[in-house]
């Protein structure tokens, strides 16, 4: 424990340099901004800013990108409560009771509960990263190729189980992502695969182009088609200080939400969205009078907001200890680390202590900044909602174009982005979520590499995955997950959760 404290102290020294503090603040402000603005999510924003981080130190870059992610969890609740439009998918359930509270003139109270819950959950989640990270990474150093392959199988299966919507579609999206990940020169044989003879594709499909197309551009097209309507109708925010009685009422909701979110964040495929939905469902279940929900129950704001923020922090655990992304946002973080020459994996903590401990300390600092940015300065963010989408989408398109171009200083990636934009749009039309696709895309080359290496070690015997104990356990867990999702009772329950 003392070790953790001294290392954490080192992390604070890393963060408390003017540059890192500044970019932590930039991340937190940007995160709040895009959280407030509907139609612009963290995945799109992070891919947008990836090229801009080239000039920064890797630690500074990751501190800023992480700030965008957890900052968006704060900002998303603001619009959900004030105008009944969730700024982020993670705040969809917050709108149910938060907006009702706003209509009853308790907007300030709801905002305060959301911010305080987020803050406490964020700090707890960060402690879990600090305490659980190093031992898990130590354990993961015993992993060889078969273990890594099985771990990725488990990650992809969890992504399928926890994806909202159809299971078979999630499987299809992962397969498609794996296939797109195969594009480029095969490392072992030097032969080009699926490149259409284009030298620009020899290094593989550009990650930024794929992410921007599937999320940024496709979302713009969908938003234009649906026509985002918004109007500011919550007049008064009211007192920002919740009464003692309310604080007592939501106390346990915050605790439950935090614990649930922490667990979901670590789980592969989990992430903040599923965490917030489950936390809301849990509150409804444990409440003495569940009919209060949907009519302005403070627990309905406290639990999901705590859960999504806790999950946003702990989803860094599998990334930093195993090198495995658990969600589309974390897949982007893998991309960011690789662009900066750092291979995510169990050695990050020992080889890049500045990065790991600096990031953790920055999460504490960032959460403090966020509660200040979000509570006293709420009025500024509300005014942002007045920017009409017909101008906002132009801004998004222009900044994306510049960002994509500047990765390789070539217009080629923009052509790819157009293709991915159209693909992303078609997939959305066909009820297929592109998030698992992005995960498959990132994991594809790693999976193939480990699969081939495992079978070379075993001389072609596929039983190698079952003969090694850790690998066997991981595969059994995957199988158990698959069985649970196939079981009718659980499937119905799962649909219920996503229905709400």
């Amino acid at each position, binding site marked *: 424990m003392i070790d953790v404290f001294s290392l954490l102290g080192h992390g604070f020294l890393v963060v408390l340099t003017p540059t890192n503090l500044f970019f932590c603040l930039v991340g937190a402000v940007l995160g709040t901004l895009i959280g407030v603005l509907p139609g612009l999510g963290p995945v799109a924003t992070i891919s947008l800013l990836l090229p*801009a981080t080239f*000039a920064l130190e890797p630690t500074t870059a990751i501190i800023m990108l992480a700030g965008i992610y957890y900052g968006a969890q704060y900002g998303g609740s603001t619009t959900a409560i004030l105008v009944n439009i969730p700024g982020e998918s993670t705040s969809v359930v917050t709108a149910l009771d938060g907006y009702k509270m706003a209509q009853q003139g308790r907007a300030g109270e709801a905002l305060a509960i959301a911010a305080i819950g987020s803050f406490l959950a964020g700090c707890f989640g960060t402690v879990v990263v600090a305490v659980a990270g190093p031992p898990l990474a130590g354990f993961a150093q015993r992993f060889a190729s078969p273990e890594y392959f099985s771990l990725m199988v488990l990650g992809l299966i969890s992504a399928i189980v926890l994806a909202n919507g159809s299971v*078979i*579609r999630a*499987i*299809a999206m992962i*397969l*498609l992502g*794996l*296939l797109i990940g*195969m594009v480029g020169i095969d490392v*072992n*044989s030097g*032969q080009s*695969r*699926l490149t*259409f003879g284009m030298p620009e594709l020899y290094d593989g499909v550009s990650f930024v182009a794929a992410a921007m197309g599937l999320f940024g551009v496709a979302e*713009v*097209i*969908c938003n*234009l*088609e649906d*026509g985002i309507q918004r109007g500011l109708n919550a007049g008064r925010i009211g007192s920002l200080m919740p009464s003692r009685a309310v604080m007592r009422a939501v106390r346990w909701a915050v605790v439950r939400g935090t614990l649930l979110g922490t667990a979901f964040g670590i789980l592969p495929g989990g992430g903040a969205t599923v965490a917030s939905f489950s936390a809301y469902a849990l509150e409804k279940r444990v409440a003495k009078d569940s009919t209060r929900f949907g009519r302005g129950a403070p627990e309905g704001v406290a639990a999901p907001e705590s859960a999504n923020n806790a999950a946003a922090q702990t989803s860094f655990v599998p990334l930093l200890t195993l090198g495995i992304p658990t969600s589309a946002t974390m897949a982007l973080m893998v991309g960011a680390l690789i662009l900066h020459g750092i291979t995510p994996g169990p050695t990050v903590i020992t080889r890049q202590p500045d990065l790991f401990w600096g990031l953790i300390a920055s999460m504490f600092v960032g959460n403090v900044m966020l509660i200040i940015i979000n509570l006293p300065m709420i009025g500024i963010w509300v005014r942002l909602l007045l920017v009409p*989408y*017909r*101008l906002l*989408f*132009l*801004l998004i*398109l*222009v*900044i994306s*174009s*510049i960002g994509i*171009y*500047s990765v390789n*200083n070539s*217009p080629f990636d*923009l*052509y790819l*982005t*157009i293709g991915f*934009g*159209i693909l992303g*749009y*078609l*997939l959305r*039309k*066909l*009820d*297929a979520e592109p998030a698992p696709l992005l995960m498959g895309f990132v994991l594809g080359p790693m999976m*193939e590499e480990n*699969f*081939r290496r495992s*079978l070379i070690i*075993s*001389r*072609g*015997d*596929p039983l190698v995955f079952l003969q090694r104990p850790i690998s066997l356990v991981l595969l059994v867990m995957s199988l158990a997950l698959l069985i649970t999702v196939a079981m009718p009772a659980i499937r119905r329950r799962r649909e219920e959760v996503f229905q709400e």
Partner: protein
Amino acid sequence: MRSNSVRGAVDFYSGLLLAVLAVAAIFLLRDLEIGTASDMGPGYFPVAISIVLLAVGVFLIGRGLVLDGPQVSGMNWRPILFVSLSLLAFALLVDRAGLPIAIVAQVAIATLGSSERSFLQSLLFGIALAAASSVIFVRLLGVPMRLFP
């Protein structure tokens, strides 16, 4: 794509999309050596994935034909066409005419994709964006891009 002849249109068309992509991938990979499990060629893993993807696609096509399912919601061609064209315009112009002209052209085309149009306002916004991006990205952040034709 608004078709009532297929019972589960969403299933059918997503299956079709996946199957076509899988068949195309198998076709493109046809010359690569597959190899054996102990000595995998470059084609082994991608072909294996394509085959599973094809199977999923065929399953969805079948389910769409047999079972009733959701229909595809109506498509509006305007946004997808003009957003794609606007990115294309930027890509084609940025190296030839420079960043400011590329941005103005992109904004002008993208505006046509929005249903609520006020062309003049968008154009002014585009010019402001072009000026701001030139200063922020090229002058301050040092992104190597041409400013003038």
